[in-house]
């Protein structure tokens, strides 16, 4: 299976690997996937409380190269977006950007789930109701 250059670059030089302080109220954490499935993503956002803009995003991922690249790309896209804008990131955008092969589409779905889970964590922490999330097929 040949991977795109962008994917390999994200795998080789992942952006924003790390951990944010999850005890802070302006940090949202999403942990999705399961070790048994071979993919676990943890994605975190830090929101600027005055502007509502995501000022920082970090990830850690256990998974294949596509999963690592999908989460690395997601953190890049999240930074500078408002929380509402972040909700519009669709897994198919990730598929397109990284040119993921069909068997790896679930990695992009997981990344989208991780974004939404992080946003929901942030919302709940800040007294907002969690959003109902549509189920995507993995």
């Amino acid at each position: 299976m040949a991977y795109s250059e962008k994917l390999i670059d994200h795998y080789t030089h992942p952006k924003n690997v790390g951990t944010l302080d999850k005890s802070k109220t302006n940090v949202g954490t999403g942990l999705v996937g399961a070790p048994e499935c071979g993919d676990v993503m943890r994605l975190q956002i830090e929101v600027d409380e005055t502007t509502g803009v995501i000022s920082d995003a970090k990830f850690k991922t256990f998974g294949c190269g596509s999963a690592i690249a999908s989460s690395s790309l997601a953190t890049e896209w999240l930074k500078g977006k408002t929380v509402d804008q972040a909700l519009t990131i669709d897994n198919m955008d990730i598929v397109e950007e990284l040119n993921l092969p069909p068997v790896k589409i679930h990695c992009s779905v997981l990344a989208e789930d991780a974004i939404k889970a992080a946003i929901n964590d942030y919302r709940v922490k800040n007294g907002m109701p969690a959003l109902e999330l549509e189920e995507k097929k993995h």
Partner: protein
Amino acid sequence: MELKLPIYLDNNATTPCDPRVVDAMLPYFTEKFGNAASRNHSFGWTAEEAVDYAREQVAKLIGADPKEIIFTSGATEADNLAIKGVFEMYASRGNHIITCTTEHKAVLDTCKHIEKLGGQVTYLPVAADGLIDLNELEKAITDKTILIAIMYGNNEIGVIQPIREISKIARKHGVLFFTDGTQAVGKVPVDVNADGIDLMAFSAHKMYGPKGVGALYVRRKSPRVKVTAQMDGGGHERGMRSGTMNVPGIVGFGKACEICMNEMEAEGQRLSKMRDRLEAGLMQLEEAYVNGNREHRLPHVANISFKYVEGEGLMMGFNKDIALSSGSACTSASLEPSYVLKALGLGDDLAHSSLRFGLGRFTTDEQIDYTIKAISETVLKLREMSPLWEMFKEGIDLNSIEWAHH
């Protein structure tokens, strides 16, 4: 010696042809192209002689009589012929077959087919080290049992089953014993008489011969074993396998067996030393585990799980330079991790984190050094970005987390 890249450590998948094998084969594509079944001219005689000689070379490697070798297209066909052929031939005696859960798919799927035909199949579990329990094997035998099918050496973990003990049990109960010897023949001494084997499948391309040729050993004396042909036609191979002989392939197979016969002992020692060094180097990493019994094992195989790192992600870190296999689901479309590792009782997480190393005739010490370094670096790098590693380091029990299953 200079380091040669890329490094091939997937010799359980296939091996390169030994140049000596290719040299032996070449004339049989061009000037000696005859059909070994052509009885009435010199082209046919030349081809037949070559096949006869190869049959001797192949038989000698496993201590068999040349007449007991049935050439096939490979081990998968030989597995099919053995199991389906015995099932049909001995239908009047019974319909029960005993095998185990870590067999190759060519055996397991054939057994599934037998079940569809109305046969009964017992799939013995294996212990955590990959070995079957001989008591369980004996207990599984019924008066309907016609065949025990247990592999010699496992393709994923290299574990060697207690072949002689199995054959003793088979003999005691008058049951035939078939073994898939694909990974073992040419790597460790296999002797069909000393080992008590009645049928054995093996393949050329796992022992530095060409792809597309293999053999089924079928015992002729005490007991005389027969299999029903699964391929009908010209009645080749004593009626057990019709089809024009793959003469160049068979010649190459014979040469490959001869080379193994002469070099196996030294090669096995060299490879097991190298494998042990590879293993010791990689076991320097925290949370690395060798899968399968380390004592009863093929000399060239190692299977190691690197906990908290996913196998395919791991391979991507060095797959431009190092070729090997993973038990990870991500390497297959099925999304299921290795059934062999799961049969050992490994959790899915460890099965996903495994790499299989298959060393070979052309593996060098420099390549092993490079591999230890490249894999260690990648494991460390990926653990730095693994949420599971972080949790482990913080002392969080991963089983205490409610994971979202997909």
